[in-house]
């Protein structure tokens, strides 16, 4: 028997957090220790290596919309559990936990807003809500937002961050790909522009529907963008993936996005794009 005994366990598993609390943060890109206030001022982009931290929908609204102009609609729509899905946990429980944790009703927020006085319909996803996965509600909110944009003759901007379709709604979540794409076709037929912004990550059913359908597609640097997840591809082909595979820069090289923009410059460029489309 050992003559020493550990009094208490120092390492207690904790819930994973988006950004750790405290004054200092370690950059996931370059391991630099950054003062949190500085990082906040720099819109959560590392000053040293330009790593773009994952941020929530609220922060994106603050960054991209003119102050106080974002007017959210359909925020009361909530997911139900149509398949009574049970994996490791019940989907119904998972939804409750996600709502409590994020204070959001779903993985997307939609509303009217202004970007340097240009009216837009803005949809912004939130990765913290079940990995930004797309189920019936995400599909419905986007479809309604596009319909409103058509009625009010406004451009649509969707900022994506998602692992893909929400498995717990089975084929219903798959159909949201068709539904949102059908509404985007309607928007296009109405002669209105759609701008897609891809942030880390944008994969699966979201990339294979609205994220890749933008008239203009913008990506943040270093974002993972693709159809199949890297783990699945690695398993399928049985070899390591080349460095930079499926990142924004790779997507730009292969001709699938228009431009990579740092978080700090997105608003200005959006203004430029909106002005271009508005000028008749």
């Amino acid at each position, binding site marked *: 028997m050992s003559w020493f005994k550990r009094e208490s366990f120092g390492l207690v598993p904790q819930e994973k957090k988006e950004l750790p609390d405290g004054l200092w943060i370690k950059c996931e890109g370059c391991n630099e220790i950054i003062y949190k206030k500085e990082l906040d001022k720099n819109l959560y982009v590392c000053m040293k290596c330009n790593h773009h931290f994952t941020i929530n929908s609220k922060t994106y609204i603050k960054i991209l919309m003119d102050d106080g102009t974002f007017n959210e609609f359909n925020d*009361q729509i909530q997911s139900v559990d149509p398949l009574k899905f049970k994996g490791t946990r019940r989907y119904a429980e998972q939804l409750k936990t996600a709502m409590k944790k994020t204070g959001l009703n779903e993985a997307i927020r939609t509303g009217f807003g202004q970007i340097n006085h240009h009216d837009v319909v803005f949809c912004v996803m939130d990765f913290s809500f079940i990995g930004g996965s797309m189920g019936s509600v995400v599909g419905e909110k986007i479809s309604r937002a596009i319909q409103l944009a058509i009625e009010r003759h406004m451009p649509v901007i969707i900022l994506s961050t998602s692992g893909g379709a929400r498995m717990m709604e089975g084929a219903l979540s798959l159909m949201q790909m068709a539904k949102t*794409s059908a509404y985007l076709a309607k928007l296009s037929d109405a002669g209105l522009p759609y701008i897609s912004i891809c942030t880390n990550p944008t994969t699966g059913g979201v990339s294979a529907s609205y994220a890749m359908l933008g008239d203009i597609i913008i990506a943040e640097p270093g974002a993972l963008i693709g159809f199949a997840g890297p783990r699945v591809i690695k398993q399928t082909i049985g070899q390591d993936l080349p460095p930079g595979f499926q990142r924004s820069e790779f997507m730009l090289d292969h001709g699938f996005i228009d431009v990579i923009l740092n978080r700090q410059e997105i608003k200005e460029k959006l203004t430029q794009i909106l002005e271009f489309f508005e000028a008749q």
Partner: protein
Amino acid sequence: MDTYILDFERPIIELEKKIQEMKDLSIHDDLRLQDDIARLEQKAEKLRKDIYSKLSRWQRVQLARHPQRPYTLDYIKRITSSFLELHGDRSYGDDPAIVGGLAKIEDLPVVIIGHQKGRTTKEKLHRNFGMPHPEGYRKALRIMKLAARFKRPIVTLIDTIGAYPGIGAEERGQAEAIAKNLFEMSHLPVPILIIIIGEGASGGALGIGVGDRVLMLENTWYSVISPEGCAAILWRDSTRAEQAAEAMKLAPTDLLEIGIIDGIIKEPSGGAHRDHDKAAAILKTTIIEELINLNQLPVDQLLEQRIQKYSKMGFWSE
């Protein structure tokens, strides 16, 4: 071809064998076995009904994957009076995992597109196990647009466990290719009839699966991901696919109930793999009926109904 028998099929197959033996005996030895044979045939029919009416979701998945199940080209050969296969996406290459072309069913000119699996090892590799690359979706779209220009209805036959997850597929824009097809198919101004003839998983299936009417053969499945993929994500264990199949509610009756499909097509007794000709005959009758109905709608009404159909999909509360 060796017969591949699933466990739950075995009692039926064994009984059928016995009936056949008795029939042979009665011919060769002139024994009076007619009554016994008739009795056993009745029993076999009842057994088939019993077994096939109570299939679990996982058993449906197994039937949908049955190696003797008819594939797209097997059906095309049987239901068309003429078929000219078209190749290539006019930009990168030709994907053998998706076939398509100009066809006539009776006197009805249609475009048929479908996923294609292979039966022998060589064919399977050639068809990439029915898992398309972006050029497959782009070829499909090219042919569908041709159909739209010349006002020909489109029939698509779905049978894939998903779009191929590989380096080349990503480099050439798998996501964009699928997204583009969803976008275009939602407003192509001709009738589109979708039929799931085997497996249907993920954007790989949906990439040629947006249309006016969506039907499933009886022993097929359709969901957002394969049962193995779902199990791998949920439990990091793809061998729990059976459990995943139950959780995802991927059988035709499930999907009819939640409004994702419009109907279920009967298969010959014992499943399509037991009688290709009969399965094709049923499919042919269904296609003709459906297309005659769809052809009667004016284009604007057709398109309005199509968007309404997808608008309604999903469940939520507010």
